[in-house]
């Protein structure tokens, strides 16, 4: 009754899917073009990969390295600051749950471009304390991934009974460290994993804050390269899009087997 007829379904998905595929295909076609004489070959792709770490695209690779460092530190910030707080709120401060949710979803309302206006003075202090290393941007990135990470972890937190689990462990003589590391974290594995993946994807795609605080990351480097060599910029952009797609596909797969098992469990 609710389901669309197969023809309607595939017509809608087919048309939208094809239209959305055009720019991606165009990126591919663009990178394979062979200069003025026309025709296609892989020479640009070969040039990018044969140069290696010392080739003329060293800048982009360094920037990619910066972005990876940022992604790792941001995930670490999230794991160290957000996860324990969420567990603590769930266990001891249930009356703070709504406030916590409000705070974590707040960055959706505050555009990155607005945040950057206020971050500039904050970062002049941060640079004095921690130096001007690129990793310090992770403090700001921790804020912009907050809504995504919060949602992923909260969904997992609601699915398990944290209070009962921790009281059970406590009544069997476990200390709080044991409860956290051996009881709660294993149960929250899926939420933490998908929060980490989505954070990595968001950090690798971030441009606004890095550009306006004059830091170099993958996206700012791509914009600079695109001015002199648009083909190389498109090659890296295409690779980054495919990588992010696979990363998110992996998140979906992390969640899938568990759901399937519980479905069959319920029917048997």
């Amino acid at each position: 009754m609710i389901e669309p007829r197969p023809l309607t379904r595939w017509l809608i998905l087919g048309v939208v899917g094809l239209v959305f595929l055009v720019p991606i295909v165009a990126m591919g076609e663009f990178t394979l073009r062979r200069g003025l004489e026309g025709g296609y070959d892989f020479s640009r792709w070969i040039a990018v990969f044969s140069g290696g770490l010392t080739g003329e695209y060293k800048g982009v690779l360094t920037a990619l390295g910066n972005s990876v460092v940022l992604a790792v530190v941001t995930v670490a910030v999230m794991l160290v600051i957000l996860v324990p707080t969420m567990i603590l709120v769930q266990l001891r401060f249930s009356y703070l749950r709504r406030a916590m949710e409000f705070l974590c979803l707040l960055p959706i309302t505050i555009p990155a471009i607005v945040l950057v206006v206020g971050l500039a003075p904050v970062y002049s202090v941060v640079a004095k304390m921690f130096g001007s290393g690129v990793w310090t941007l992770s403090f700001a990135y921790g804020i912009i991934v907050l809504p995504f990470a919060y949602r992923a972890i909260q969904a997992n937190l609601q699915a398990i009974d944290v209070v009962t689990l921790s009281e059970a462990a406590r009544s069997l003589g476990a200390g709080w460290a044991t409860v956290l590391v051996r009881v709660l974290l294993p149960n929250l594995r899926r939420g933490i994993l998908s929060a980490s993946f989505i954070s990595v994807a968001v950090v690798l795609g971030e441009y606004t804050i890095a550009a306006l605080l004059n830091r170099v990351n993958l996206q700012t480097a791509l914009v600079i390269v695109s001015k002199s060599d648009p083909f190389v910029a498109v090659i890296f952009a295409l690779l980054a899009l495919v990588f992010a797609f696979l990363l998110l596909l992996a998140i979906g797969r992390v969640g899938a087997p568990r759901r399937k098992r519980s479905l069959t469990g319920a029917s048997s």
Partner: protein
Amino acid sequence: MADTLVSVVAPLEGVEPAAVRARRPESSRRAAFTVPSFLGLVPFAAYILLFLGLPTAIALFTGFLDGSGSFSLTNIEALADPVVLNTFGNSIGLSALTAVIGSVVGAACCYALIGTNPTGLLRSVVDSASGVLAQFGGVMLAFAFVATIGIQGMVTVYLRDSLGIDIFADGVWLYELPGLVLPYIYFQVPLMIITFLPALEGLKPQWAEANASLGGSRATYWWRIGIPVLTPSFLGCLLLLFANAFSSFATAAALTSQGSQIVPLQIRAALTSETVLGRENLAGALALGMIVVMVIVMTLYSLLMKRSAKWQR
């Protein structure tokens, strides 16, 4: 496992499991007073204060300062300047247009996905592709559209050489305001799919059964049940799309070559050159203007979401 444990403990104490559950908040509150566990909240609170609260406060209050650092309303008055008003108009127009198109096309896709296996291959691919385009694209979407409808883009060249249509006959519009419409739709539709699909999954099969048993048709179902139930969610998602386009910066920054046609680009100009309308601290005033729009939109959004939650009990 947890439930069996409660039932093991309960008989020993001579209380019903329900009573054990009811007493729990009391016991945990008592524990909260003996151990200063609120200290555990300090790192998060400090972090939020330093990197979210402080920057937002600075962004909002610098708008009220003049060049020498004393309080003044001149920058706020600049928000009424025709140039600034025009930019806000552009931003709101662009966001509204792409939000409407994005939400209609996205809702159609969500409709087409009803009844597909949520863990199947199709849904996994749609979910991941939507996530990438909605949250990750930014700069790279600008490149994609340069390769598609740029001056030497695939579609431009095809239309020109094969069909004799020159899409840039009236000048190259890709690097100006109209050029942002297609890339924005390209990330709005996926965002609609991500945010609206859960609402469609909240449609209960019982409603369709009730409709069928009362002799209703497919059209009656959608007209009398589906659309009224989904309208608040749809409008909420529409607002979220508006907010998303309004605050988006990367695509426009990578695409537009000159000028500051939308507010985020004007903030960049104010931050980097300080020559916008010959005023300092204008970035703060513009940020304040953006926040006002965002707060209105997100407040309406949360009201609509509360309304739509009524049906998801």
